[in-house]
């Protein structure tokens, strides 16, 4: 198989999905953010965003912390070390493939 095609076939499928790619790309440039920020920036609906986040958490790429801002519940999200490494790897892979 051609090198570029192999690079495409080896792309991380968890990150490659457009919804999750948006989330990981956004989390990659912030220290942390809340659910509302991702909802506003990605323009996904709550259900979609929650399911993508659950998938990323399951893969160990995203850390989810339930907390409070004053009396208001807040869900804080950040990329884990594994998540950052996977995203870097994904970017390199995509560059090699294209």
């Amino acid at each position, binding site marked *: 198989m051609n090198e570029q095609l192999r690079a495409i076939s080896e792309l991380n499928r968890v990150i490659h999905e457009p919804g999750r790619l948006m989330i990981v*790309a*956004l989390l*990659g*440039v*912030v*220290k*942390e*953010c*809340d*659910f*509302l*920020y*991702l*909802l*506003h*920036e990605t323009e996904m609906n*709550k259900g979609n965003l929650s399911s993508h986040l659950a998938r990323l958490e399951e893969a160990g790429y995203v850390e989810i912390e339930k907390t409070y*801002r004053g009396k*208001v*519940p*807040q*869900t804080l999200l950040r990329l884990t070390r594994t998540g950052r490494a996977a995203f870097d790897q994904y970017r390199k892979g995509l560059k090699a493939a294209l």
Partner: protein
Amino acid sequence: MNRPKRYDNIDGTGEMFMGLMMLGFTLASYLEASLPVNSSRWMHLVVIYGVMIPVLGFGFWVRRVIKNHFTWPRTGYAAYPRVGGKSWWIGIVVALVISAVVAAGFAWLRLFARRHDAINLPRMGMLVALAAVYAVWVFRMGREHPWKWLVVIFMALGLVAIALIVPGDVDAWFRPVALFVGLVWLASGGATLYSYIRHTQPPAPEAE
């Protein structure tokens, strides 16, 4: 991806902070000018720091209050990575190089202006630098608000008017310029905040 950096000024607080800083410089400069002629350099430093530290503290406090009460409940909270390690040093070096180039440029303009009385180059240099800084800032941070380009034009015209009306050297000219620029940035940031509050609503309580 640079969207999160632009998000930081979605409420106009970045611009208002810059405006407040310029107004602080204006106040410090007027107070400094009112000091006795033979006052020591230390006295000048005390005046500058005595004004700027409370002004910057107030700016940070206002910014935090606006984020807490309006921005984070409406469009969410995002924190940016702490600048550190290699990037911190790069930032310092870049800031030093830019400051040195600007200082050398102004020194050269002042020297040149002494030899050629017809054109006041330091004034023109300051005018171009301020308008260019704001234009670059609008291009990078305020692309969501095309009307900001009108503010850039208004600011440039205002600076030209001040350059034509106010007599004296760069030092005398700096105060009205800083006052004008500070007020423009404060008003522009305030308009962004007003527009942000008007066009965004906090989500229903069951958002999460």
